[in-house]
């Protein structure tokens, strides 16, 4: 190929350039092969949404009319080793025979757990003083939105709450 002497300098340069590109390209390929699966694995929770589940939170008789009670149940994404960390909660209020509202316990400001102050009929957040009325509407403080609600139903005398993602202020998943 490169038989003449003046051609061989050019030929060597071309060869080095080719090998340079080849090595860099192959190194990139090796890098991609070793990093893409781990990156995809780490990001997989973004695409594999767990199915929502209805959780039994107690019999109808446990919820007096008009009262707001904290109910605790397992969320949908529980893993075998999650233990208590798979638990979540809701403030459940009975409005009628089969009528309930389940409020998320997460403040819509930054997600802290809101508490129900029975005598004041207010939900209050300990972090930055967000306050909500008993219907979940913002009463005071920094929360930009009303408390999120979970779907509730009554089946065979049992009250069930549907698991939901933690309500993020910027989306409307719940």
């Amino acid at each position, binding site marked *: 190929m490169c038989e003449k002497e003046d051609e061989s300098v050019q030929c060597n340069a071309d060869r080095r350039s080719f090998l340079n590109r080849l090595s860099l390209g192959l190194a990139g390929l090796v890098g991609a092969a070793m990093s893409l699966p781990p990156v995809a694995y780490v990001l997989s929770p973004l695409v594999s949404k767990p199915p929502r589940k209805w959780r039994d939170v107690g019999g109808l008789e446990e919820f007096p009319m008009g009262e707001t009670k904290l109910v605790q149940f397992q969320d949908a*994404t529980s893993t075998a080793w*999650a233990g*208590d*960390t798979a638990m979540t909660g809701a403030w459940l209020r009975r409005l009628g025979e089969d009528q309930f509202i389940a409020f998320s316990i997460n403040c819509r400001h930054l997600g802290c757990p809101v508490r129900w102050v029975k*005598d004041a009929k207010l939900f209050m957040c300990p*972090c930055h003083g967000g306050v909500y*009325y008993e219907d979940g509407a913002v*009463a005071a403080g920094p929360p930009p939105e009303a408390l999120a609600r979970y779907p509730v139903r009554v089946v065979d005398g049992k009250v069930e709450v549907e698991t939901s993602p*933690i309500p993020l202020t*910027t989306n409307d998943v719940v």
Partner: protein
Amino acid sequence: MKFIKSILGWLDDRSGFSDVVMPILRHVVPDNARWWYVFGSATLCAFAVQVISGIALATTYVPGGEAAYESLLYITNEAPLGNLLRGMHYYGATAMVVLAIIHMTQVFLHAAYKYPRELNWMSGVVLLFVVLGMSFTGQLLRWDANGVWSVTVAAEMAGRAPLVGPAIAHAILGGETVGGSTLTRFFAIHVFVLPGLIFAGIGLHLWLVLRHGISEMPKVDEPVDPANYKEEYEARLEKTGVPFWPIAAWRDTVFSVAVMALIVGSAFFFGPPALGTSPDPSEINANPMPDWYFWWYFAILSMLPPQLETFVILGLPVVGLLGLIVVPVLSNKGDRAPSRRPWAVGTVVFGFTALLVLTIYGYKKPWSPDFGVKPLPASAVASSDAAVVHGAELVHQKGCMYCHEIDGYGGHRGPGLSDIGQRLTQAELIIRINNGGYNMPSFAASLTATELADMVTFLETRTGAVVGKESIPSGGRVSK
């Protein structure tokens, strides 16, 4: 002895220790680089404490679900030296953050970031942020109720980002809720990712220190001129320089010993931070609070007008990082002496004052309702009038005192009510309680007419007079 010497000689020859490492250790440094210059090496020492104590803790810590909490209880209460080790890891983290900030402040005040050490500064800034990342993720590994709710708050904050916010939030949580995959992520980040970055960052940082040399103490008559700085620096080193090891390094080792003593002493005498209740996300009696070095940021977020919140949550870390990185780009030559750089001195004074004030605010958190407030004692009510006494009970029962202070009792979120009887008339009190006001909810739906009347009657007695001397309002009683 001869045999051992021959083995050491063989190792030295084959490894090149004397040929490669010793010249690095003995590189020439300015002779005036004295106690001001010990903070960088002390930060490195604190990092070494973190690595060693962290490895030891990782042999027992179980990074999963509720087992993490159980293993922390075991480390703290049962494992031999576990309590001391947890303490060392905690105070080592504190030392690392504090020393890194002091080191950066010294570099900034002495303008050591100027030519040719711009990249030293930039790599240091990145290291500082990674160290803060270590602190935050480390706090979460203390997987109690505070840890769980701190993750939730972090996810909510990330969720504010436009478009990608929810994706980032779910990546943080390892799903749509806190669960088994949450802690393991933070463990991986805390134990593998961030330490890897710190090792790489320290490697680069030290290499740059060797490449450009340790800066001299700033002098008024020695401004930095990139055109001839290197030649002048070399010339000065040749005249007055001393080998780093051991002439300069002894101060580093002495200071590092003091830092170690402080870390171990604090761990021994004060112990690690107490664990909260178990990491159950359905447990609502939690009040998430970051570790002390983030209290200033916690305070900023709490006091901001809501319309600015998202911008500050997302923007402050980015602006902070970029703002610090561009410092040497904005000014890489000229005066180094603090006496010639009043703006730099002013920036440091202002920055530390703001940090201190905000940190105190973050600790006191006057914006948080005080759920633990006790009912007003009879001495504070200072009346036997049934309506007044009932009104005093109601301001506690209805949650008013969570936010309002009355005669030294109650929260500080709202204005104090100790002299409300002087500031508002009876009619104004009724309107305010019924309708609410700025940052105050309406209580119309939760008070009966009698309750409202008694509450107003009580509030009218709060005239700012010394408790116990004057208690009966001058105005008439509210009709029920």
